[in-house]
């Protein structure tokens, strides 16, 4: 197993800079895409935490935003559309020593991957889930998403989106997530702070980030967000579930920051406990045979 590999290339503990996390692969995003801001905030947060790239895994699905793991020099898993959370959960359970961060888009996480989202939340698996929410499908060139507002016009909703938008923050809270926050890619310092807290948080941490798609979303643009976001004031009690739900309800202006944060046992801790209690030094299949004799 991984832990038995003790050989380390870094003999001295080093303080890593944001640039140290940048891989040789150049991002393929459109100039101005909100995802650059998210990537930079992630670099900053990782450097603040001085995360060891060898012990960090970025997991993603499919979409423009899901390309992110390739741009970072950590271990990465770029899987299929919508399956970030089960994969991330498997990795964390396999090796709880790893820092596991799921990344992806709103389509990936809240549409095709929706079946997994409340389950990851209720399990309170200790991972951070960073959703670059541009309220549209970028990679497939501009279709409506489950966070698109009602009336939103796209090629697949030419008469305007007839459906209501889901509220991922509320959904996460009521599903059992223990850390729920919203960031904005144009507020990178603020976002980096949120990400730091999310990674530090033991348990399922959702960070939903407004990350404008400059190519396909002509409504939720940088201009649109001007004056429509505000930082959550210090007076908000993040352990107050109803206050958090109310905050998550607010629109225009949108609150930015940590809405909800409580501590609960995590799935990986509990699994480790079960293993510890059940583990038997000399458990053998020979023994199990007895039941069938």
């Amino acid at each position, binding site marked *: *197993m*991984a*832990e038995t*590999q003790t*050989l*380390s*290339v*870094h003999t001295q503990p080093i303080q890593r800079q944001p640039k140290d996390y940048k891989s040789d*692969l150049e991002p393929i995003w459109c100039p101005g895409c909100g995802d650059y801001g998210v990537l930079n905030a992630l670099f900053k947060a990782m450097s603040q935490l001085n995360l060891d*790239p*060898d*012990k960090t*895994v*970025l*997991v993603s699905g499919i979409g423009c935003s899901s*390309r992110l*793991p*390739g741009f970072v*020099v*950590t*271990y*990465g*898993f*770029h*899987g*299929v559309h919508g*399956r970030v*959370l*089960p*994969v*991330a*959960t*498997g*990795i*964390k*359970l*396999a*090796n709880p*020593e*790893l820092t596991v961060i799921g990344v992806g888009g709103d389509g990936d996480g809240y549409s095709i991957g929706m*079946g*997994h989202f409340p*389950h990851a939340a209720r399990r309170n698996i200790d991972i951070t889930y960073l959703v670059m929410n541009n309220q549209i499908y970028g990679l497939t060139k501009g279709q409506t998403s489950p966070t698109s507002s009602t009336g939103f016009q796209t090629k697949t909703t030419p008469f305007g989106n007839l459906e209501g938008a889901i509220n991922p923050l509320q959904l996460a809270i009521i599903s059992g997530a223990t850390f729920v926050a919203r960031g904005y890619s144009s507020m990178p310092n603020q976002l980096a702070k949120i990400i730091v807290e999310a990674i530090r948080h033991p348990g399922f941490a959702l960070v939903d980030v407004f990350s404008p798609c400059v190519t396909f979303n002509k409504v939720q643009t940088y201009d649109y967000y001007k004056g429509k976001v505000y930082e959550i004031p210090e007076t908000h009690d993040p352990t107050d579930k109803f206050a958090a739900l109310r905050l998550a309800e607010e629109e225009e202006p949108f609150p930015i920051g940590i809405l909800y944060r409580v501590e609960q046992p995590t799935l990986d801790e509990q*699994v480790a406990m*079960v*293993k510890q*209690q*059940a*583990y*038997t030094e000399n*458990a053998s*299949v*020979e023994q*199990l*045979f007895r039941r*069938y*004799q």
Partner: protein
Amino acid sequence: MEGSRTDFVVRLAGESGEGVLSLGEMLTTALARLGYEVYTFRTYPAEIKGGTVLYQVRVADHLLLSYGSCVDIFVALNEEGYRENIASLRPGGTLIYDSDNVPTHDLPNHRVIPVPIGTIAKKEIGSMLTKNMVALGVILRYIGAPVEAGEQIAEQTFKRKGEEVVQKNFQALHAGYHYISQHVEPLDPLLGKVEKVNPDRLVINGNEALALGAIHGGLTFYAGYPITPATDIMEALAPVLPRFGGVVIQAEDEIAALGLVLGAAYAGQRAMTATSGPGLSLMVEQINLAAQAEIPAVIVDVQRGGASTGLPTKTSQGDLNLALYGVHNESPRVVMAPTSVEDCFYLIQHALNIAERYQLPVIVLSDQSLAHRRCTIPKPNLSLVPRWERIVPEPSTNGEYARYAITETGISPMAIPGMPGLAYTATGIEHNELSDPTYTPENLQAMKSKRFRKLQHLSEQYAEQFVRIWGEPEGADVGIIGWGSTEGVIREAIQLAEKEGVRAAALYPKMLMPLPVRVIEEFASKVKRVLVPEKNFTGEFAAYLRSQTNVRPVSYAKDTGLPFDPEEIREEIIRVARM
């Protein structure tokens, strides 16, 4: 029954939810403990209550290869079960029926023994719950087994519920036993004596053997979603895997289950999931991901009747095409099929090994009849299948780890997160050796052939080791090529055909992808005709053989929800021999 002979079939049928299954299991274990060989078969309705449960035990003092062709003793516990099964009782066979539930029938060709099972339970013990114990006593006495065999089982089964419950069940067992002593004319006991009881045997079913085999094969991570008839693999693993340092997770669906497995395998664990047809179809996208991103994964498919929800509790071999071709574009996978309960134990270890070494998905095709077939097997040899470890790279300092290095075998050393200096991104998108997305025609060609080379290597090195041949193919009238759970019944049918002067042999590849083409063609060239029996409707394996080899088989495809019986295969062998 023509005098005493220790090879006969007992069939039980009764209302679902009334303990027929546990009666069958108790009878089976009792007989196995007495030293006999047992081989069971069961079907049950998809609903929890209502409908008929059928449990069949064949017992003999020699190796059993099938559940038999006809029924010698039929125990009917409800009327529906009686009506549905009475035709299968052979002339001269014995009908024992619960006269409280089944109307009296006049059957001139059978020995008929009515037993008021419910009345006995109520009057003597005061509890209808003990009905199946009364029935166990009846059967044990009728076939000539000692009552102690039943006591031992009762003790074991009910110990946890307290002494009083044990005593009640003892009483019920004896009541049934005595009823037969008093009411039935003595006849020669059916059960011959076993000379020496071999203690080194297990009485176990396919799913349980597979679960134990997986643990022995080093499984440390299991994720699954309940589906009949695969669920009891998870239920067998859940209480014990943590003892070995492993984890069992019940996922929210099959897609998540395989996602969990891929995550865990990527992070260094030996991981597996098990499902049945509908679940396998949900997993197809990620099976390709496993192949493309080169992540080990074992997926057990316990096939069931279908399509769609179909016949969830009945057997079928209808998922072969899905396993072989359930793929978008093209990606390598290994498909294997265990052929017996014993084989389940070993094959799953090979599957875990192959997934681990070759970094690809391995689909293991079992089926309901094999999964729930309880039979006696020699205690497995724990050192038969050596463990293969994952090939990992040397630690690196220059950051130039080529995760997808192009190699002769197609296998590239795979780093595990946590290993220093080797961070890379596993990806399903087409990539170069450094795992950077790359779309050039040359790269695609090179990468695809690298990934498929793994199958070629596997085929050259190992596929032939997984072939079993029964009988002498040289000059045989019929050469059977089969797959999966039908091996035993085919072997028995070959013996039956032999008695009529028709010579047949059989070949069973346990690795279906890659297919051991050379041995198959060689086998086919030695026999006069090739017959492919399988439990599906369209002859999937026969078509696959036609597409992969020069063999032109006669297909005998039959999808009834029931396993083959040796008689029908014997007839088919003779028919093909005379074609």
